């Protein structure tokens, strides 16, 4: 791997994203949102909750569906925590993070019934940080099959 000198823009972006995961680890959703623009975009690509009337997907705004998902996830997994294993940035405000997130289930979460099991799941997050050092986009990827297997849920959906 070739090490290259980072720029102040890349350093500032990684600092904001680090603060985001610090707030997430503290389970402080308001602090997470405070690091984002008012209209920041949110896309949890694998997120899908099939209800009786409609299907809720994880795409929208951070202050809307993002906040709702984080709050309900923390409510269902009250010891939720995360561990960042890698963080890389470019000079345009993009930051890619490999992070494990997990906890012990205390309540049902969406279609996942309460099992009392724990999970520890690898994710890839891609952030964009704007010129004012605020996050204006978050996209995340993970494997629900791994999550369901850890939680003991067999249906694919």
């Amino acid at each position, binding site marked *: *791997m*070739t*090490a*290259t*000198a*980072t720029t102040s823009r*890349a350093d500032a972006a990684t600092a904001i994203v680090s603060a985001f995961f610090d707030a997430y680890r503290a389970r402080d959703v308001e602090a997470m949102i405070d690091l984002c623009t008012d209209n920041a975009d949110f896309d949890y*690509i*694998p997120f899908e909750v099939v209800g009786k009337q409609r299907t809720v997907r994880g795409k929208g705004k951070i202050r809307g569906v993002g906040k709702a998902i984080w709050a309900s996830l923390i409510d269902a997994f009250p010891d939720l925590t995360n561990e960042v294993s*890698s963080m*890389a*940035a*470019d000079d*345009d405000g*993009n930051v*890619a993070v*490999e992070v494990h997130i997990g906890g012990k289930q205390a309540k049902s979460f969406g279609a996942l019934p309460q099992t009392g099991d724990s999970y520890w799941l*690898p*994710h*890839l997050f*891609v952030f964009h940080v704007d010129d004012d050092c605020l996050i204006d986009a978050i*996209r995340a*990827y*993970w*494997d*629900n*099959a*791994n999550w*369901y*297997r850890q939680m003991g849920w*067999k*249906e*694919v*959906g």
Partner: protein
Amino acid sequence: MTIATEFIRALNAHDAALAMTYCDADGELLLPHLGEPGTLAIEGTEYFEALVTAFPDLRIRTRHHCKMHDGVEVAEVNVSGTQAADFIGIINQEKFCDVDQAWRFTTGDGRITGLHCFWDQTMLLRRLGVKRLDNITITQGAAL
């Protein structure tokens, strides 16, 4: 063009062998269904050969691409195609699938030294007609 985009271009040409020539043999490979890290030479060759073989109309469309510092590249892609053969234990039901994925490359000296892929395996399974994680194939009971 970067080494990562060359890799994707080779797969779009259905030339997995060419794609693997851009990789270090010992490079770490993470794929959702593997469970444990593999190597680019062994598990990587096996997987990408299977991908281009099972999906003869395979198309990998890059939605976002970032070239980070320290040799990291991230390609957010949509991988689509119609299954024409059994694929990683998933029996062929001739279904079409498209799945959004993120591929994180580590590169050095003009070569791919690591590849971590992230996607929702349940989405892939649903698209290919699988309903339960403990019953991926009709003939085998192997879970992923």
